[in-house]
């Protein structure tokens, strides 16, 4: 009833091409922002921040990054965990090398370094396509993790081989290290998510995003109509890796604090983020957020139900969780191969006609 284009007059091209053309959507979007910035930081506690919100926000960044590469540009990557590790270690090296610089710059710098590494590993994509490329990105995954394990320079020769984040502040509020408040962790991740999601959304509907999608739909045809595949693929790798690198940097510095590379950024992480993208919806920014939320919430929920309410042993719950996640992925792919984002689109279509569908 409220979800209508009718009566919502556009008087300029700018208005006509805005992200949310329907007023109800705009209101909803601003409401979400107000709740996220104005209410949640004041009521959040450690459990909610560490178990739900912070991992959700960080995975959302990584999922948007992978979605740019896989969903928009059609290059399947299984190296996300490795690129997150690059972000984390770059952030660590920058943090320890330049302690006086603000951490925001460290995180962005880590993203830029990861973008460079991403371009390097993206080069073969010009020759290798499809599954072959997916497997080729595994080379990045295993090589990078091995590199960070074996070269002591990356973890500053620490005895444990781990890296741990020193305390850093923004406006004298600690955001990394053990003294960080739940709301500070949440806020820094939220700001990154909002800014990056905005950038991603606008990149993907501009020239560059269109050239990515042309490459995804059929690269030879795209080349014939004048899209430069070298430029399109490498920019997709660069932008995607930039996002993933920032996610890795935040994952290490804000969320975990101390990281062992094989454990935190192993192949399982690559698959987890790929699942987020698939379940959320390939080629959709909202889908990345939805997929991340879904796969972060699901284990928490299952754990609370199985271990908390039914009193089962934790290992049994963990195995059952594997089964449920696996089954859900299959069910999703059968029922709706385009993910949560498509369900959302269908719901919105229905809502436009409601309550008079005929």
């Amino acid at each position, binding site marked *: 009833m409220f979800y209508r284009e009718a009566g919502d007059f556009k008087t300029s091209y700018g208005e006509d091409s805005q992200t949310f053309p329907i007023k109800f959507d705009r209101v909803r979007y601003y409401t979400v922002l107000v709740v996220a910035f104005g209410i949640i930081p004041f009521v959040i506690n450690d459990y909610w921040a560490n178990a739900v919100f912070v991992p959700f926000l960080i995975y959302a960044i990584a999922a948007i990054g992978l979605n740019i590469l896989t969903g928009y540009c059609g290059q399947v990557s299984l190296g996300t965990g490795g690129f997150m590790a690059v972000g984390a270690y770059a952030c660590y090296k920058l943090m320890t090398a330049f302690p006086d610089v603000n951490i925001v710059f460290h995180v962005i710098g880590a993203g830029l370094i990861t973008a460079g590494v991403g371009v390097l590993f993206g080069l073969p994509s010009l020759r290798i396509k*499809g599954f072959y490329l997916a497997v080729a990105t595994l080379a990045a995954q295993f090589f990078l993790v091995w590199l960070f394990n074996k070269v002591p320079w990356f973890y500053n020769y620490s005895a444990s081989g781990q890296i741990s984040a020193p305390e850093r502040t923004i406006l004298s509020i600690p955001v990394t290290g053990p003294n960080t408040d739940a709301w500070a962790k949440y806020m820094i991740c939220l700001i990154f998510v909002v800014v990056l999601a905005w950038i991603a959304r606008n990149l993907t509907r501009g020239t560059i995003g269109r050239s990515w999608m042309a490459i995804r739909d059929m690269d030879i045809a795209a080349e014939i109509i004048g899209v430069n595949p070298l430029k399109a693929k490498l920019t997709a790798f660069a932008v995607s890796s930039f996002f993933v690198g920032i996610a890795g940097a935040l994952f290490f510095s804000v969320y975990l604090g101390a990281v062992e590379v094989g454990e935190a950024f192993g192949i399982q992480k690559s698959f987890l983020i790929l699942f987020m993208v698939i379940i959320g919806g390939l080629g959709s920014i909202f889908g990345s957020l939805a997929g991340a939320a879904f796969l972060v919430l699901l284990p928490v929920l299952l754990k609370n139900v199985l271990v908390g309410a039914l009193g089962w042993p934790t290992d049994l719950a963990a*195995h059952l969780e594997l089964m449920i996640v696996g089954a859900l992925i299959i069910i999703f792919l059968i029922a709706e191969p385009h993910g949560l984002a498509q369900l959302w689109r269908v719901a919105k279509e229905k809502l436009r006609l409601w309550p008079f569908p005929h």
Partner: protein
Amino acid sequence: MTDQFLYAVEVMINGLMAGVLYALVALGFVLIFKASGIFNYAQGVLALFAALTLVGLQQGQIPFAHLINAVLGTEVTHFGWHLPAAVAIVLTIGVMIVLAILIERFILKHLVNQEPIILFMATIGLAYFLEGLGDIMWGSDIKTMDVGLPQGASVWIEDNSAWLGGDGFYGFFVDKLDIVAALVAAVLVISLMIFSQYSKQGRALRAVADDHQAALSVGISLRFIWVLVWSIAGFVALVAGIMWGTKSGVQFSLSLIALKALPVLMLGGFTSIPGAIVGGLIIGVGEKLFEFTIGPMVGGATENWFAYVLALVFLVFRPQGLFGEKIIERV
């Protein structure tokens, strides 16, 4: 001949044997990819599941014992019998066939005509599901597999090659199990080739691999072929599971050999059975030799990534793999 050279030869022989094991897993991939165009990520987990089932049946474990105990509060673990290895293997083959039927019935049937990437994702989901199922059914502790395969160093080879080197050289160390694995792989490949060349089902399988629609139009049942090919892949997975399980125990890491089989496939080409074998041997020898020569200089454990990087570099020059069909692209 210097001892250093002889050690290198020994490393190479062991690499060849390891390569045979990789090839066994890769074989399962190729079969399914040829018959249905599905890139089956779950192949490694199939091997794990088959091995778990085999051990569980052999030792008379009660399936889902852990779950039953948690829900009903009982303390059951074993039926209290031990099956002979042959019976357990036959039963496991039965389980794998049932699994193939279920996979076809509940997953593949619904995903006909989807893009390959969607099918690939579905097999990743299947891998997770089977991993959880295997753990819940049989428990996640490390199990030892014993189906009566010979193990340990082959003394005969050691004694008969000791004369090659000087005093410090005691002959080549070759595990008997690896030799058995190589023989089994050879038999498996030959029988698969005979099957696909000369049997009715084998021909139907090749027809499906060639063109789904044309195969359908001459009256070949796609669904039957899929069940068939997944059953064969399950059988190959069982063989691989037995070999790897005997070598290093039945545990989660078994499913990771699937990842090792991927570069093997890329080298050999996804559609070629000989390619899987040759690719496996190249990767096996390559990573062992690299670890032996370059490994100590860079801190070791290069086996984790060498195969992938080799495949990556290789593919840049030959994108379809060694024996893959030439990629023709049209708008």
